[in-house]
Structures are given as C-alpha cells and as structure tokens.
C-alpha cells in the first residue's frame, strides 16, 4: 500500500501531464480535422470535376492506409520536404488529417440527407446556395450526423495512443514507461485501460446528450 502511495507521489505529476497531452492532441485533432473535413465536403459540393477528383483521391488514400503509416510519413518523412515537426505537432496534424477524411465523408452524407424539397423551397424563395447551406442544410444536417460525429470523436480519442510510438509523451507513453521502470507492466496497462474507458464513457454520455438535444425538431 505504501509502495503504491509513494509511486503515486513519484509519478503523479507525470501521469497528469501525459493525460493533459492526450487531451490536447485529441481535441486539437478533432477541431482541426472537423474544420478541414467540413471544408472538403463543401468544396465537393461546389468545385469542378478536377478538384473533386483530387479530393476523392485524398479521402481514399487516407481511409485505406493505417494511421500509424501516415504518422510515420509525416514525422519521419517530413524532413525530406523541409518539414521538420516536433513530435506533438506532427501527431496532432497527422491525426487531424486522418480524421478530416472521415469527417468529410460524414459531412458529405449529411448534405445529401437533407430532403431535396427543403432545398427547393429555399431555391424558389430566391435564397443563394451559400445561404441555403448555412441556414437550411447545416442545422438539419447536424441532427442527422451527430451520432457519426460522436463516433469519430471517440475513435480519434483512442488513436491518440498511437502517438506514443513517435515519442509523444501522452498517457500511453508515460504509463508504458512507468511500467517498464518499475516492472509493473500489467498494473500500468490496466490503469491505462481504465483511463481510456473513462474517457470513452464520458464522451459517449456527452454524445447521447447532444444527440437528444439536437433531435428535438427532427420531423419524420
């Protein structure tokens, strides 16, 4: 017992810092990835054939290759193009780019899920495409795609563990290190598991709440 207490004293701050890094990289990637994904989805609505093809390739490449490989390419391969990023920066950017492909697909399906009639009504009233997207499509879309968005956000939270492989000092890296230093691998892995379960559980609860609030005006 006292051994555990002293361990907590010794490593507490580190673990907290690791947790902080996990949260920062997770939320940073979510915000950047969602923004980028939304931009891509909107571009796909408006742009010409060539741009759409390029975007399609972007999405397919990101969705058919593992995140780890993408991370390696950015972090270890980046210097080839003059892009020498810090591990954390590379991690957040890589995760954001990875997420953007999935977010783009969710937003795209969201755009097409709004009944055509609602758009036609806006058209007949003389509303511009941009106004229609902003005032009619987006609010309704958010209701329909909230579950998918929550799902992606949870997936990204778990992917942050991969950042440990490129030496980002997030939770997995810290606890793995402690485990090997103190020869308590299994205990630290279990604590790590519980941490992620808590994170996922809380996010799921918040997600359900958001879904319920959003679907107040969904008309079937």
């Amino acid at each position, binding site marked *: 017992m006292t051994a555990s207490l002293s361990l907590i004293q010794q490593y507490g701050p580190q673990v907290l810092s690791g947790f902080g890094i996990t949260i920062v990289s997770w939320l940073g990637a979510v915000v950047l990835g969602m923004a980028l994904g939304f931009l891509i989805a909107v571009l796909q609505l408006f742009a010409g054939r060539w741009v759409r093809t390029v975007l399609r390739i972007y999405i397919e490449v990101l969705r058919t290759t593992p995140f780890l490989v993408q991370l*390696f390419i950015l972090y270890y391969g980046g210097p080839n193009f003059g892009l020498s990023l810090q591990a954390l920066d590379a991690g957040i950017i890589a995760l954001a780019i990875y997420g953007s492909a999935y977010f783009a697909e969710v937003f795209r399906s969201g755009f097409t899920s709004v009944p055509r009639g609602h758009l036609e009504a806006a058209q007949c009233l003389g509303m511009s495409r941009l106004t229609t997207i902003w005032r009619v499509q987006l609010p309704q879309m958010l209701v329909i795609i909230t579950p998918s968005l929550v799902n992606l956000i949870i997936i990204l939270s*778990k992917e942050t563990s991969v950042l440990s492989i490129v030496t980002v000092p997030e939770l997995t890296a810290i606890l793995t290190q402690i485990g090997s230093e103190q020869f308590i691998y299994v205990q630290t892995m279990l604590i790590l598991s519980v941490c992620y379960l808590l994170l996922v559980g809380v996010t799921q609860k918040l997600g359900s709440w958001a879904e319920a609030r959003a679907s107040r005006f969904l008309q079937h």
Partner: protein
Amino acid sequence: MFDAQSFLHALPLLLRAAQMTVFVSAVGLLIGFLIAVAVVSACLSPRPPMRRLGNLYTFVFRGVPLLVQLMLAYYFLPTLGINVSPDVAAIAAVSLCEGAYLGEILRGGFLGIPRGQIEATQMLGISRFATLVHIEIPQALKLTAPSLVNEMILLVKASSLISVVGVAEITRTAQNIAASTFRPLEAYVAAGLMYMAVNGILSVLGHYAERHFERA
C-alpha cells in the same frame, strides 16, 4: 527529396510482409467471428446477467485502444505462465478486440431475422444450439456481409499496430527498411501503397460478395 530507387527496392520486401498482414487479419477475423457469435448470444440472451456480461465485453474491448490491448496481451500472458511468440499474442489481442466490433455488426444481423422463424424452429423441437448454427448464423452472415468485408479492411489497417510487438508485417518491415537505408519516407510511402493494394483487393472481393449474397 524522394528516392525512387529505395522505394522500388522496398516493394518486394513489403509484398512478402503483406502476406503476414493478411494472415494475421484473416485469422483475427475468423477467431474474432467465433468470439463475436458468443458475445452476440450473450447480448441477446433472455438472462440479464448474460446480457450485462456481453455488453461489458463490448464496452471494454471497443473502449480500450487496440495498442493498449496489444501491450496487455504481450506483457500479461507471460505472467499467466503462457509463453507465446509475439505473433500469437498479437493474433490473440486482435481477435479479442475484433470480437467486440464484429459482435456489434452481427447483432444487427441477428436482430434482422424475423422472430417468427426462431419460434417455428423452436416448435419443431430443434435445439437452441442447432438453431444458432444452422438458421441464425447463415442469415446474419447474409445480412451483414458487406459490413464484414468493411471490417476486414479496418482490421488490415489496425494490424499495423502489431508492429509494436515485433511481428514482421508490413509496418514493421518498413521500419526495418527505414532503419537500414536511412530513407524513411520511401519505405513508409511504399508501405502505404502496399496497404492500399491489399485493401483495394479486399474492396473488390467485397463487391463480389455483396452481389453474390444479394442474389441468394
């Protein structure tokens, strides 16, 4: 900037490593499927304790990142006295994880089978187990075939993590190449392309499977 030569040299090595990737993914899918059937049965069981167990399994194995599960398997099994090679530990971890995800997919499939069919088989006196094997699983498979192929693709991508415990699949091999040639970009781009190729083939197979099951 980009050395085409080292890129091209990496490809044959990665092609061989791809076999390992596909092997691990396939075995993981198969064993995961068996686990999934057990999980689904638990989740849909009339007894609350079984349901709780099933839901708990799903929550835990979908909530903990695969990387952590892999490391747990790698370090935990030896403490139980089970000394296995990294490959086996990796397959075990991947299977357990897949079991949870496949379970969710199968659940949709099982729920899609009309209740009346199950009742009819019960009336005919066919055992629960036989009903499961001969009536429910085949239909659930038919209903969820496209999702299962999709899951296989996800599994191939997730398998890149088993490089961490030293299994000689695509990512690990690329890491080795990068270390020996000092050209990480070319090695990892080649790895990426290899994954795309594998997943591309899986997608095509998936379309055939979809059409095959549609007709049946």
